[in-house]
């Protein structure tokens, strides 16, 4: 066999041709083992965490918990105010973030001609998405609570989260806009429609699924957020009317913040786990719906 290759064949190569060496097999086996281990660990972690939280929390998710307010007098614990506050914050934050986010994406994709400006806006968006929530919390406190005089309030918290979710909405909308074929645009423009008319009648409707995905992901982010709300929306547990929720000065804890308070400050772990269960369920629903929509988008 030596003459086949002609050169002075390395012994190692010749032996290798007899079969895969034990050392090589061991290496491959080790790599495979590590892979299986890593995948198993990840799955076990998830199953363990979720399983444990459900195990501890589900028995305490009661109608009374969901439908009442906490009272020190009767020793009752209820999270209705927190559920409402979470809803308020979602709605208010989206009312601000949605038009700005979609508008930014439309500007970047449909209007902008100045490449430098596009790059600066994209850089700003990326920067926003990299800022940790505790910094948002502080900035929100400085800007909305203090400088704009809103006090610790649902409104201030919601505005803070509006800024935080902005990059999500911009990104998903932009991605959706990119999938709208240029022929649609050309078709509309060829009919003599103005750019705005084209955007309104052709581009935005085709990008609707992407925008909805952005909304869902934003809701997920808002529901899970806590650090940005501690010092902006505050920790109060009273029921607020919708009107009060948009009036400066009315503080309120969301589900996450109340979980933190019950666990860390008051040691009420049963309540904390019950809230965790609710948060997990919301998270699942959001994850699944975002995924289903994403699949629809790809079609």
């Amino acid at each position, binding site marked *: 066999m030596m003459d086949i290759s002609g050169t002075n064949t390395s012994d190692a190569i010749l032996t*290798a041709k007899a079969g895969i060496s034990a050392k*090589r097999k061991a*290496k*491959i086996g080790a*790599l*495979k083992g*590590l892979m299986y*281990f*890593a*995948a198993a*660990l*990840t*799955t076990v972690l*998830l199953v363990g*965490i*979720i399983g*444990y*939280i459900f195990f501890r929390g589900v028995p305490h998710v009661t109608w009374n918990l969901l439908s009442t307010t906490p009272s020190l007098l009767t020793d009752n614990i209820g999270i209705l105010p927190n559920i409402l506050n979470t809803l308020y914050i979602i709605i208010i934050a989206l009312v601000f973030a949605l038009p*700005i986010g979609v*508008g*930014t994406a*439309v*500007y970047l994709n*449909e*209007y902008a001609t100045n490449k430098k*400006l596009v790059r*600066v*806006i994209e850089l*700003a968006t*990326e*920067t926003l998405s*990299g*800022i*940790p929530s*505790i*910094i948002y919390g*502080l*900035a929100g406190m400085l*800007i909305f609570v203090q400088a704009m005089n809103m006090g610790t309030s649902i409104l201030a918290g919601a505005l803070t989260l509006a800024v935080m979710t902005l990059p999500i909405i911009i990104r998903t909308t932009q991605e959706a806009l990119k999938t709208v074929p240029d022929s649609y645009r050309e078709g509309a423009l060829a009919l003599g429609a*103005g*750019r*705005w008319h084209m955007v309104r009648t052709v581009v935005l409707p085709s990008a609707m699924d992407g925008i909805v995905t952005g909304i869902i992901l934003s809701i997920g982010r808002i529901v*899970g*957020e*806590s*650090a940005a709300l501690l*010092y902006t929306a505050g920790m109060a547990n009273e029921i607020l009317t919708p009107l009060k929720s948009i009036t400066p000065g009315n503080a309120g804890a969301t589900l*996450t913040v109340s*979980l933190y308070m019950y*666990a*860390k400050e008051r040691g009420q*772990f049963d309540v904390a*786990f019950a809230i*965790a269960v609710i*948060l997990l369920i919301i*998270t*699942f629903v*959001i*994850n699944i719906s975002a*995924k289903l929509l994403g699949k629809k988008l790809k079609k």
Partner: protein
Amino acid sequence: MDGTVTLQKSRLKKQKSVENIFKTIFLIFGMFSIAFVIFISIFLIISGVPAITKIGFFKFMFGTKWASTAAKPSFGILPFILTSVYGTCGALLVSVPVGIFCAVYLAKMAPGPVAAAVREAVDLLAAIPSVVYGLFGMIIIVPSVRKLFNLPDGANLFSATVVLAIMVLPSIISESETALRAVPKEYEEGSLALGATYTETVFKVSLPAARSGVLTSVILGTGRAIGEAMAVMMVAGNVANMPGIFKSVRFLTTAVASEMSYSSGLQRQALFSIALVLFFFIIMINVVLRKLTSKGEVK
């Protein structure tokens, strides 16, 4: 005749002005992101700089003692900086290898349904709110660490690092997996044709080919770990010690959060300075990330 022409002209004029109005509106929306970044930076700088100048830059950054409420207060944040660095590195030490192996498994080895299931698990892990991780850490990890190492208290740097490792894992897995999937099939064929087994191919060709994406995932994970506040606050013990593996510690994030509610005067200003330092770290990470991703695009 003249009448219809003027009518058309005025309609055109009207259309044009509507166009311009919307163009301006979208431009304004686009500027919001830039404005927010500038606002956040300015407010953090204005609030953060005074304390640093009062305390002295070196004393502040490299002072090893933080006693903000003592009779003779001392504001050194080296303990927080080091804790954040150690905690982040420790978390990455575990989650980077586990994450990469898991990503390789998902992208290259796992049979369809298994990959789909594990991927689902990873997405859910990424979506779980940080307070839920914190709660899990408080109830499971902290007591286990206490028992396992026979400590008086399990709320310490080690527990926080474990929680961070779990939280960072999903972002490393999903980013790396995306990068691995993008590796051209031709590379793998080339390696197989040389006699390498599939496992060897995946680790020696695919993984190196995906290195910039994998690196991106690590940087993203770093950002997430350094910015995490709530989960860490629930498990790290929150005493301003110089870091030790089983010492109760404060991270940069938790240093800000834990004193904010009752702070005043120089102490409050110093908290903003800590936030400024954290913000600076995050911006640095973003810059590195941007460099990396733009390099990836050139290829």
